């Protein structure tokens, strides 16, 4: 058991994933996080946005993703779409403000990508940021991990 854990944490640090030794959710370093469980990956002025592993785990199997149209404006903290799972639709909020430049149309036919690959193939929208300063109000991976632990402890 000990050697499996050692292997897992070595693999985790190689892949630059920090793994909870207790919980099931993964958190990726170098991403920023909102307290409504969305992540954002920044590349210059471009931001890719999705929901976190913690979020998809708490939602259950996603059966439908409501995507915005390309060209609409999104605002930090405001919802831009929704995901449906087990008879519940949950709003998805944008961690940053800007203009939607791309949406992940794969999610139309394969909404389950949000569950299976929340940080990669399950990305939801790409935004051209209007104010990169907004990133400062988001959490980094360590802060987000702690945030999730505190939330889960309430249950």
């Amino acid at each position: 058991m000990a050697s499996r854990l050692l292997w897992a944490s070595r693999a985790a640090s190689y892949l630059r994933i920090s793994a909870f030794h207790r919980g099931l959710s993964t958190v990726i370093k170098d991403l920023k996080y909102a307290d409504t469980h969305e992540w954002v990956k920044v590349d210059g002025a471009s931001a890719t946005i999705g929901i976190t592993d913690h979020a998809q785990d708490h939602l259950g199997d996603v059966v439908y993703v409501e995507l915005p149209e390309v060209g609409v404006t999104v605002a930090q903290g405001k919802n831009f779409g929704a995901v449906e799972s087990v008879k519940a639709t949950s709003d998805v909020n944008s961690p940053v403000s800007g203009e939607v430049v791309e949406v992940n149309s794969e999610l139309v036919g394969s909404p389950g990508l949000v569950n299976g690959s929340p940080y990669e193939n399950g990305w939801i929208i790409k935004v051209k940021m209007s104010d990169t300063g907004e990133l400062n109000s988001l959490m980094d991976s360590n802060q987000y991990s702690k945030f999730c632990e505190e939330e889960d402890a309430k249950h």
Partner: protein
Amino acid sequence: MRLQRSLEACKFGIINYFDALKLQERLVSDRKSGKILDAILSLQHPPTYTLGKRQTDHNLLVSEADLKTMGAELHYTERGGDITFHGPRQAILYPIVSLRDIGFGARNYVEGLESVMIEVASFYGVNAHAGKTGETGVWVGDRKIGAIGVRISSGITSHGLAFNIDPDLRYFKHIVPCGIPDKGVTSLKRETEMELPPDEVIHEQLIHCFAKVFRFSDIQWKKQ
């Protein structure tokens, strides 16, 4: 340390779907801004068909004109789930709660709502159970007795559950309920051997079970 959490329970009679929707929107907004604490609405609707966010109107088997003739309304909503029917003698609960404060995620919340209906069914000797994956709701055998459709906006819930006490089940013939063909619908009246109390009693039992499942310390009752 567990904080004391109060649930405000508002009891209505039969109210129109649109009016209930507007009320919920106001309460969700108030809950978001912290103006109010967690609340639950208890009511029934006049004959109403509703669709969820996916707008699966292919599961409506009659035209809108026919619905009007029947005296039923049709509403498109933002909740999860497929098409369903609401009508008199069907108990509706619309909890407006902060999932974050109660420490639940969407999946656990829906499972909690299922357990509320399962428990109340058991009071009447009815052995109900949750559905298989993809068939959310509460079943007796392969007959559906309770349905769930929820919306979560910034962590605040709206819409909720519908529990068949003794509605006119013929209305369900005009839809593919919840998009699941070949499965029937049923009611507490059909499944129990016991005599049922007035609907108000069953509504209160549902609210008590809700408070227990979601760990509220007390209920403040309000009648409208």
